């Protein structure tokens, strides 16, 4: 019996196949042991985890947990039918496919919702993004299925069973209850998950034994085809596979035959990989209009958490986050968060956003908030120091950008800057502010050591009073200590300068850097303080 099943498996032209006299489930384990001794084990080239999410329409609504039985209704023709029921409603006897009236007659307290395909799709994509933890090859099977190719990741997650358990945990953490199964063929894995049997098959030779007993409804064929198959007494995949191929194609369509080939692994089944969205964008409708920034921040917290997950799955960070607050009448308020280094930490975002929101004045209460991320930037995870801060010279030898961002969130982006030395002999142009996000090389200090330069520079030279040709300040004549040092720039450099610089001391003993213009009227200017 078992050898027959093996022989029928790889046959391609079905019309010459002998029909089995009796249809029954094929025992699996004895077959396995006998085969291992007889023939070399055929390794599967791919292994797919099929994830079926039967309660996705309900879970996508994100209703608060309660005891009321819930159901999703769908309009088919003129009548509302039950599409999905929660476990509690199922215990009360409500089944998918019932009419709404029948369900209400059965359980008057049933809470009905209509489907929200957009949110279902969002939730499915969210799950697919989380599933990329396990493998880069995730594909969506809308409206309620996922496929994960996990052959390469098995050893990372401790084998097939452990991996399936991890996938299940991940789904449950996202608030979705999954049905799983694992098979070398994607469609077979999906059919197994939809049947609720949940098998784990890692060898192609064992697949048929599990597949044969699955009902044909798991393949999602059109109802009239299923009805016709049922009329000739065929209701499982195994039975359908034993029908003559040419006759099957003629009666039930080529598409259905091709699908049978794919589910049995006779034909290649190519799946498009799920591509993550490159930006994060979520709009959060508030239940009440809010005015206080703390309350707004509190409602944004879950969205920020989601953003953190989104970034973590991609090993990316963002340097810009826009928070748009919508009002009833007034145009929306925009609050832009700029980060010195790519970050992905939800708590960090919340802290900075709190600072930003606190500084914001709102024209009207907020009705909804929207978060939009900037472009994603690949991020190398930070290394923590072994020592505590400041201990043994330890501490964050990385840039530690949190402080800079925190200050910038409150003071404005341009209020926090670094210094750099520029190659110019004109005193005003020899320095400039820089952005802190780039790690800079150490400045060349050699040429400046030779010259006396003050530690403080006035942004604009201040004209000094003079008496008998000598500059005065605070009612006393300045004493010239050193100089002159002549600094001139070329006429081609715009407003050229021609100055004689001196070091001087005022009556209080403060050393100053002053200059005298070389062109008439030879005024004296204060340009720096030595500090």
């Amino acid at each position, binding site marked *: 019996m078992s050898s027959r099943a093996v022989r029928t498996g790889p046959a391609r032209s079905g019309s010459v196949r002998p029909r089995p006299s009796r249809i029954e489930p094929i025992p699996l384990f004895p077959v396995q042991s006998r085969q291992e001794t007889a023939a070399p084990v055929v390794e599967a080239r791919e292994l797919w985890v099929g994830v079926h999410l039967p309660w996705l329409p309900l879970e996508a609504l994100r209703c608060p947990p309660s005891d009321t039985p819930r159901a999703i209704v769908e309009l088919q023709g003129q009548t509302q039918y039950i599409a999905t029921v929660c476990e509690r409603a199922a215990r009360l006897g409500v089944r998918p496919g019932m009419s709404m009236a029948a369900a209400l007659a059965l359980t008057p307290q049933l809470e009905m919702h209509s489907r929200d395909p957009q949110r279902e799709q969002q939730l499915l994509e969210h799950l697919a993004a989380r599933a990329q933890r396990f493998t880069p090859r995730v594909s969506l099977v809308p409206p309620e299925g996922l496929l994960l190719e996990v052959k390469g990741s098995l050893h990372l997650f401790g084998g097939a069973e452990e991996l399936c358990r991890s996938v299940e945990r991940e789904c449950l953490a996202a608030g979705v209850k999954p049905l799983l199964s694992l098979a070398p063929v994607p469609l077979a894995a999906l059919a197994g998950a939809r049947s609720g049997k949940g098998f784990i098959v890692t060898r192609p030779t064992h697949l048929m034994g599990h597949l044969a007993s699955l009902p044909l409804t798991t393949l999602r064929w059109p109802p009239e085809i299923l009805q016709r198959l049922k009329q000739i007494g065929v209701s499982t995949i195994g039975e359908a596979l034993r029908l003559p191929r040419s006759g099957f194609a003629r009666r039930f369509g080529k598409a259905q035959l091709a699908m049978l080939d794919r589910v049995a692994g006779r034909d290649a089944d190519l799946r498009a990989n799920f591509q993550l969205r490159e930006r994060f964008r979520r709009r959060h409708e508030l239940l009440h209009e809010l005015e206080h920034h703390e309350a707004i921040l509190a409602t944004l917290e879950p969205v920020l958490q989601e953003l953190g997950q989104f970034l973590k799955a991609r090993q990316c960070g963002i340097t810009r986050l826009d928070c748009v607050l919508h009002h009833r009448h007034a145009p929306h308020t925009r609050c832009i968060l700029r980060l010195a280094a790519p970050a992905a930490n939800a708590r960090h975002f919340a802290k900075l956003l709190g600072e930003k929101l606190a500084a914001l004045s709102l024209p009207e209460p907020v009705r909804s908030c929207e978060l939009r991320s900037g472009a994603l930037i690949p991020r190398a995870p930070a290394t923590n120091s072994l020592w505590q801060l400041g201990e043994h010279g330890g501490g964050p030898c990385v840039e*530690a950008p*949190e*402080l800079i961002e925190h200050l910038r969130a409150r003071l404005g982006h341009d209020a*926090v*800057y670094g210094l750099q030395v520029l190659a110019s002999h004109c005193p005003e142009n*020899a320095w400039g502010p820089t952005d802190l996000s780039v*790690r800079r090389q150490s400045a060349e200090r050699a040429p400046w050591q030779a*010259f006396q330069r003050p*530690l403080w520079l006035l942004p604009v030279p201040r004209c000094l009073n003079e008496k008998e040709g000598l500059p005065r300040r605070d009612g006393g004549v300045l004493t010239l200590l050193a100089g002159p040092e002549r600094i001139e720039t070329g006429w081609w450099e715009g407003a050229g300068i021609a100055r004689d610089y001196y070091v001087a001391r005022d009556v209080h003993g403060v050393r100053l850097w002053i200059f005298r213009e070389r062109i008439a009227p030879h005024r004296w200017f204060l340009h720096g303080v030595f*500090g």
Partner: protein
Amino acid sequence: MIDTAFPLSQSAASGITGGTGVAVSAESGTGSPAPAAENIGTASSGLDQLLQHPAIWRGRSIARVQSVSTGFPALDEALPGGGWPRAGLVELLIPRFGAGELYLLLPALAALTQQHSARWCAWVSPPLDPYAPALAAHGVELGRLFIAQANSPLWAFEQSLVSGACDAVLGWAVQRALEPHARDIRRLQLAAEKGRTLGVLFRPHRAARESSSAVLRVVVEPLEDGARVTLLKSRGGHRGALDLTWTHQNENSPRSHGS
């Protein structure tokens, strides 16, 4: 008190070596090797360990302060721990801006920013633009330095201190309206200890009359080619005035920096 407590090990020494009294004073306890039997050494080293316990306060010999050298040997000697504290608030009281207060700090800033794993050096609300070429010439690593212009400098000062991301934070609170009160100083001092940061707050000279919980309070007055530094308050250190001379005075020759 230390000397009266010490006979314990002395009697042990006489008991073993037959009366060759070993005079080990508390001050020289770490440095002088005990010439007698080994268990004297262990006894005194045990005592040293005990005395280094942070809860024991020994007046002026509070030596276990992590510090960074000021770059002026005379000042190092006067300060507890031999330099500016690595964690704590220092107040520099200046009669007027440009009294030499920054030259006093530059060697330490240069040393801090040039360290292998240097943290940030923050300048909060400086009254003028710090001149980058001069800072670079004094050895300050500009890549580790940032400036924050804040209209509430005390907030930015405290945030920088408490974050633990800075080695040194320099803050100017010279505007009369924004002058810190005694409890603000206390708050800043705690922040500096928590973040293990050297906080330097520049205040006008008139603040010398107020009490303050800063670790160190220093008055800086300009002299001909240096500054007079008066230690108003120094936790566990000397008090009094000393005159410092800037090494960069005769700067006309490029070799005068000595760096």
